């Protein structure tokens, strides 16, 4: 592994708190958090973080794709067989399977 790749793999992505004054990120997010998988087509949300079960490498990739804490996401459509779904994020469109989307926690308000 190259030194740069090693450094990049040390990145830790902290949650995005929608409320100022919320405690730092190492606390687990409150249960019942909604995920991208709950988003129906034409709904928008803001990414707040990732679920604890998501492997760190997957989280970093989602971050690099634009599904970063604080980013606005718009659900464009679902495939005819209901999976995967296309999301608009960071001026682009990305298709994600439900199995990955359910780890991206969002705030729907």
């Amino acid at each position, binding site marked *: 592994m190259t030194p740069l790749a090693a450094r990049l793999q040390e990145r830790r992505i902290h949650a995005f708190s929608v409320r100022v004054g919320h405690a730092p990120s190492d606390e687990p997010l409150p249960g019942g958090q909604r995920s991208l998988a709950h988003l129906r087509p034409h709904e928008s949300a803001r990414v707040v973080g990732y679920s604890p079960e998501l492997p760190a490498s997957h989280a970093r*990739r989602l971050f690099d794709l634009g599904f970063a804490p604080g980013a606005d996401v718009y659900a464009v459509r679902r495939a005819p067989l209901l999976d995967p779904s296309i999301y608009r994020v960071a001026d682009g469109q990305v298709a994600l399977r439900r199995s990955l989307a359910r780890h991206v926690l969002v705030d729907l308000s």
Partner: protein
Amino acid sequence: MSHHHGQSGARVAEGTRRFALVGSPNSGKTTLFNALTGLRAKTGNYPGVTVARYEGATTAGGDTVLIEDLPGTYSLDPISPDEVIVSEMVDAHESYDGRRPTPDGLVVLLDATALQRSLTLLTHVLHTELPTIVVLTFGDDLARRAGSVDAAGLSAALGLRVVPIVAGQRSSVTLLREALAEVEEWPAPAVLPPLEPSELGGWIRSVLTRASYRPPDVDARTQRIDAVLLHPVAGTAVFFATMFGFFQTIFTLAAPLQAYVEQLFGWLGGVASERIAVPWVADFVSEALIGGVGGVLVFLPQIALLFVLIAVLEGVGYLSRAAFLMDRVMGSAGLEGRSFVSLLSSVACAVPGIMATRSLPSERDRIATMMAAPLMTCAARLPVYVLLISMLVPADARFGPFGAQGAVMFGMYLLGAVSAMTAGWVFAKLGGRKQGAIPFYMEMPSYRFPRPATIAAAVWEACVAFVKKVGTIIMVTTVLLWALLNLPLQSDADLVAAGIDPADEVAVSSHVIEQSYAADVGRAISPVFEPLGFDWRINIGVLSSLAAREVFVATLGQVAAAENPDDPQAALAEMTVTSGPRTGEKLFTPPVVIALLVFFAYALQCMSTVGVLRRETGTWRWPLTAFGYLFVVAWVMAFLASRVAGAVT
């Protein structure tokens, strides 16, 4: 100081500067690479992996420089073999024993319509501390979508040179060439951008503000088209119509072209036979050499057409939509949507299908799809199926409202597809969940008009690769087969001694084949195929078809014509077993024909496929695995089929 090393191609002087193109997939890298290097790209693999390498040369400031088109990546935090290559190539401190030479400068492509995301990759690249220059692409698309960016402001904010490039505009590419010549003067930022996720967003926002970036509106054109093409009902209908049109085009357009090629080589062969004095040399040249080359080139129209279609669909952006629609189905076999495109291409020919697996980021998926591709019913199986089905089912038999022959043919296609999915599932399972399994995601790029030059370059590369590497294998096998079928040479004395009249051409050729080394081999391996009901003549046919499936028809035709030159078809139908327990019985009974059909459905009888598997995986392990497992499965399935058929009929 860069050291040119490559697999073949022109030697380049030591000290030639080398630049690498870095960018996300769909950022216009290939178009820029083609614009810079023309069609002089040399391809191969990166040593040790299944990743294709594109390298070419261009001039900058009067000197030749090398341009390398690195695989598209979103991040230098790699999760797929492609991305590992990119991260190793830009590692300035290591060259991995010279297998990953570090470039002298990096050209980073930023898609102006997706600047926010593209800047993330740029921050990673800047941390390599290699000289870097930014190329801004799709500025025209940005403007079309009511966005804008100030390249000078972006340059000031980044501390890097920024060259806006408009695809197809030679002046902007010239500007880039001039910039490449001045690599020593490229500015670098005094402070590297933050890698820390919590600081990166702020940096990006600040840079975009300084660049007066107005993000593009949603691409209305793409949205309108997707509303149809990805609509649950309309989209699926269009999809199947496109796939149907795909095949129709291949078969109807390619067929006449193939006929021309065959005619051409037939004529050439004839000329060689007449002109060359020594008979066996004439035979060798006309049958083995010209026949061998012709055997390869006859595929070329089909492959070229296939590649044109695939390149157009990909350039437009439709392939990712097709993969999106098929992902769930492919997922049930442990694969993903992009595998569908490979398997689909394999219906015409497995060679482009296997090459299309390059688009799969996961090595496990790539291998599994490559192992499954040969099972799709390819065009080469058709002549064999036509012959065998005609022996099995009379032309006027009906299956409900459909013709029975057509129904059986459809059944063979279905068998191929189901087997392919099963094989893919098995190999995906065997590939296991390696550490760092790749999450599935797929970008849906805007629909764009593909540039004819890009299509041409893609098709050219594919065809040249096919002819060169694969042609060698076919040539060698054809020569070998020809030798085996025609040796040992029978002199007139030998013929007379065996009771054959040297003037009777039919008897001579029949005798030669019977006494040939190939026949010896055919008889020697009869224990293997006897349970399937094959005799030494079918064995020769099967052996010869190992080079290419259609050869079976020709070989069997040769054998049949030797017995009955006027009506080989009838000769085949009436052929009787000459030795062993079934002596005197008809050779091509229904169980035998069915066993043959099933055998051909499964066995890997195509040196072209072996060749391309070798080329794409960089090792002999996978082609041999494919050959081995498919042979075993073919034998077992043929055996079962013949037993079932024997019980039923």
